[in-house]
């Protein structure tokens, strides 16, 4: 556990050193968030009756998405890990007394968390100060906060578990670029990063919500925004848990088989 804390600390200090980079990143995210909301405002003015969620909820969703981008963005791959399989360096990792899956999983978590921790506060604070309905609207019920945090954790673990499946698949094929890009664009759309899932036509939405990606950022942010309530809430959390377990099991299974392959081929 200690080594992960040191790793985290070093990344954190490194992050602080590059203050212009941090500032720059924040400005970028403010602009993206603002533009998204302006866009939705234009659509709202076009046909408010077709708007599937309240505008406050939408704004909250957008700002949360920006603040926690590092946690849930699917296209966050560590090329080192891909390369280590291609070059065979992964052999070093296999010699350690820790399971490869666990190591890479924790690593994936650490990287995302360290990136998110730095960026999220300024954006959350800024968006809170924005006038309603363009800013962050906080839920009145304390329970919602707690459920959101639970849901965010589940969603994060889900995404990292998904990453793991893709990493493991690299053991089976030589070219990661194709898989990477295909999977990324698909997952991005299905998780609600392109447009929030409520905006999809009803029949499409029904299918997408059955898929695992709808259980990543889509759930916690909409819970916080008040867009998911009552029995839907319980069902969504259960779905998240289910898919998390499914992904972890698949990932670990792939890892076991992949490592067997590696050993047989002489490494």
């Amino acid at each position: 556990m200690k080594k992960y804390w040191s790793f985290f600390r070093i990344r954190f200090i490194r992050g602080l050193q590059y203050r212009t980079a941090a500032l720059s990143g924040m400005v970028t995210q403010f602009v993206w968030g603002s533009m998204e909301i302006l866009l939705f405002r234009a659509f709202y003015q076009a046909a408010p009756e077709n708007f599937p969620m309240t505008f406050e909820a939408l704004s909250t969703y957008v700002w949360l998405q920006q603040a926690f981008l590092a946690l849930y963005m699917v296209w966050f791959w560590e090329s080192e890990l891909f390369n280590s399989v291609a070059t065979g360096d992964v052999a070093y990792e296999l010699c350690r007394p820790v399971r490869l899956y666990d190591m890479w999983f924790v690593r994936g978590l650490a990287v995302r968390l360290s990136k998110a921790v730095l960026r999220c506060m300024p954006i959350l604070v800024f968006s809170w100060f924005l006038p309603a309905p363009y800013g962050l609207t906080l839920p009145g019920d304390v329970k919602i906060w707690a459920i959101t945090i639970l849901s965010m954790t589940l969603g994060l673990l889900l995404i990292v578990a998904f990453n793991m499946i893709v990493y493991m698949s690299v053991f089976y094929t030589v070219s990661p670029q194709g898989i990477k890009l295909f999977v990324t664009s698909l997952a991005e759309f299905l998780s609600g990063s392109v447009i929030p899932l409520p905006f999809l036509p009803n029949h499409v939405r029904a299918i997408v919500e059955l898929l695992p990606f709808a259980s990543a950022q889509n759930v916690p942010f909409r819970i916080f925004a008040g867009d998911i309530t009552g029995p839907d809430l319980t069902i969504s959390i259960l779905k998240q848990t289910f898919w998390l377990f499914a992904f972890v099991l698949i990932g670990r299974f792939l890892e076991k088989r992949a490592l067997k392959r590696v050993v047989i081929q002489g490494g």
Partner: protein
Amino acid sequence: MIQVEHMNKTFKVTRRSAGFSNAVKALFHKETDTVHALSDISFSIGDGEMVGYIGPNGAGKSSTIKILSGILTPDNGTCLINGRIPWKDRREHVKDIGVVFGQRTQLWWDVPVIDSFELLRDIYEIPRHQYLTTLEELTDLLALEEIIKTPARQLSLGQRMRCEIAASLLHTPKILFLDEPTIGLDAVSKLAVRDFIRKLNRIHKTTVLLTTHDMQDIDALADRVLLIGKGRLLLDGTLSDLKSRCEPPCATLDEIVASLYREFQI
């Protein structure tokens, strides 16, 4: 003819301190240090000379080469190469010099070396006939026939360095700057490279300025040696002058140079 007089160059470097509290401080206030890369450097090199430029890391060797190439502008002082100021007449000046960086390549990675050569021919606008003559000579002297059609990524370091040198000479420059050309090469390749440079100097009277940490290079090639340390020119003499600097027990050139570093505290 290279003439350098009273050249100075300073850089400002941001100071980064260790630890958490310093990192937070750095968020609000940037501290810079001034580095004197070159202080009052003067020397002149005549046509056809072979000069070794030595000194510890960070002494200012790369800065000098960059200024002589025209990439970097000095703070003050004059520099004339064949009657031109390098950074002012960059495009004309650059036609007359060749530069080989030991640790970086100018060859395209995935295509045969000969294609990189032809691209250079087009960039430098070398007349076809002249290009073919030069190419033949370089292929012959550097033994490139077998590797010239291979992509650079498939060549060994020694083979690649021979191609690099050839690439730098396709436009028959009068002056050649070599920045650590033998770094990482095996013994056979090193000898081949040194042999070639000597021949080049003998046949074409090419002026050669060589920076290196390998004293065998100096011994084999340099008539003259310039020693630079902490930005100042500390020694300018012939190779035999250098060798006579230290009586036994300094036997090898490395030991002589090491004792010089100690003497000048660089």
